[in-house]
């Protein structure tokens, strides 16, 4: 990401991650990373779901936080992840005016329990993603841009990509960006009735895979310019490349089988970041474990990376956290870059050879410079975001 400068031009701004935090069914960000490396899955059956009559009762739910009020579950998840991110970023917000702090948040369902437990005093403004974004802004004292993306299961990438762009453009000094998804009974019913949900375990890229598994969680990163990071003698943990976005314009829920939208998003992120496919050391795949989505993603990956690239999905470990998913995966990508280790494809140690992918089946040491984090969503949304090793 270098370019020759002529007189009068300023050097491009590099957006850096200086802190991250996550809450998943495996625990905190560090516990999630350790669990994924160990091949753990947080999936288990839930008696309350059986008692309520759900056909599928296995899910990945967060148990290490207080239960709290159901209608504020998303806020509680976000608060915990943001607190961890700010702690790691150590002083990122010190002396920053509120109007120079931006919040960028993605979600699918918002506070799902707010809809499930709606009463005569229901207000959408209390439960949608904008409410979650306002909550994070209030936590931070942020009065700058506050943006909520309703871009479903790709929303984390949208939020983090936009936050990095805002830092590069100088619209904010510090951005806090990520995704939130509390456990959603509406989604449990919806995915199950669409026959998209596995009854047992999520097995991305495995022949005979039976579908996705619902999770819940939140993840946030703190993003600042490299100049600001250096000025406050902080550590950059990773750099954020350009976001690539595309659309299938095909079907409300199914991806294009040719993977062309997915590939377009990947290529857009690469070209806009001036990074070659050969420089990508790992793809954090969307890898939901559904037959159609995994197959289309494999087609796209073979097209963009004809020489192959290591690929894995963490959804076998923590389930599909929907709007939080690509934010959690961003955090895992930052950890992979720092550790020089590619995490394995949990529950997927025997990948389908017909997909033609180099699936990482066990933790793999690697001198990885760039990670491409891919996320797609209902509505034919395709996204890819590059994360790079710091320095």
């Amino acid at each position, binding site marked *: 990401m270098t370019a020759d400068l002529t007189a009068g031009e300023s050097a491009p701004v590099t957006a850096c991650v200086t802190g991250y935090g996550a809450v998943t069914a495996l625990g905190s960000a560090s516990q999630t990373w350790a669990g994924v490396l160990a091949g753990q899955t947080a999936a288990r059956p839930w008696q309350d779901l059986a008692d309520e009559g759900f056909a599928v009762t296995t899910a990945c739910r967060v148990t290490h936080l207080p239960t709290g009020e159901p209608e504020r579950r998303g806020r509680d998840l976000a608060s915990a992840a943001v607190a961890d991110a700010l702690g790691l970023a150590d002083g990122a917000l010190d002396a920053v005016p509120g109007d120079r702090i931006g919040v960028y948040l993605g979600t699918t369902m918002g506070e799902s329990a707010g809809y499930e437990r709606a009463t005569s005093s229901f207000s959408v*403004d209390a439960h949608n993603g904008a409410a979650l974004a306002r909550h994070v802004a209030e936590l931070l004292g942020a009065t700058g841009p506050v943006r909520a993306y309703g*871009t479903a299961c790709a929303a984390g990438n*949208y939020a983090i990509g936009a936050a990095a762009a805002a830092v590069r453009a100088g619209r904010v000094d510090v951005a806090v960006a990520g995704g939130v998804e509390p456990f959603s009974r*509406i989604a449990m*019913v919806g*995915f199950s*009735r669409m026959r998209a949900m596995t009854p047992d375990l999520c097995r991305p890229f495995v022949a005979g895979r039976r579908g996705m598994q619902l999770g819940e969680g939140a993840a946030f990163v703190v993003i600042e310019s490299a100049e600001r990071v250096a000025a406050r003698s902080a550590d950059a943990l990773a750099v954020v490349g350009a976001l690539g976005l595309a659309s299938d314009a095909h079907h409300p829920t199914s991806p294009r089988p040719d993977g062309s939208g997915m590939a377009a998003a990947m290529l857009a992120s690469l070209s806009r970041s001036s990074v070659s496919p050969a420089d990508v050391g790992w793809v954090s795949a969307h890898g939901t474990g559904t037959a159609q989505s995994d197959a289309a993603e494999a087609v796209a990956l073979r097209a963009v990376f004809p020489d192959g690239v290591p690929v894995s999905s963490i959804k076998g470990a923590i389930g599909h956290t929907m709007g939080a998913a690509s934010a959690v995966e961003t955090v895992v990508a930052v950890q992979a870059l720092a550790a020089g280790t590619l995490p394995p494809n949990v529950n997927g140690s025997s990948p389908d050879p017909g997909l033609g992918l180099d699936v990482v089946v066990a933790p793999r040491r690697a001198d990885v410079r760039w990670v491409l984090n891919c996320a797609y*969503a*209902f509505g034919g949304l395709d996204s890819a975001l590059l994360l790079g090793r710091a320095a």
Partner: protein
Amino acid sequence: MNVVMSSLPDVVRTVTSPSLVAAGDAVSAWAAAEALTLYGADERLDALYVATTGAGAAESLAFWAAARATGFALAAPGAFPYTLANAPAARIGTVLGIRGPSVTVLGSFDDALDAAREDLADGLATRALVVHLDPVAPATSADPPATPWRLTCSVVGAPPADR
């Protein structure tokens, strides 16, 4: 990167939807048909930005109420995608054949315009259809009555090519 923004006059349409499961499908289809009529000939559109507060909300309430009434095993699978805020964007983008960014922000028309202008300046796209789709009156109960929806549209970005 400097982007010269052109902005066409905003266009406003309204429709009334019932508070039934799959009403979200009907609203999305209506919005897509209106957008096709207005902008179908604009072949240079390469991005779509939709702002909404209520898309998916009334459908979530209706989907869940119906699922509880019928039992989860009989819940309507075709209605579930319309519990998502980005369902209208999916329908509009498909009808117009827009293969670039599809962005749904939870907020106002100005929020979508801001997002589109920032992304165009960042090079994500060159010419975007910007839409605001919301009920005229937001849902304020678990059983919202039929309500009119308002669609507001504009285009920002590079001027259309000379023909």
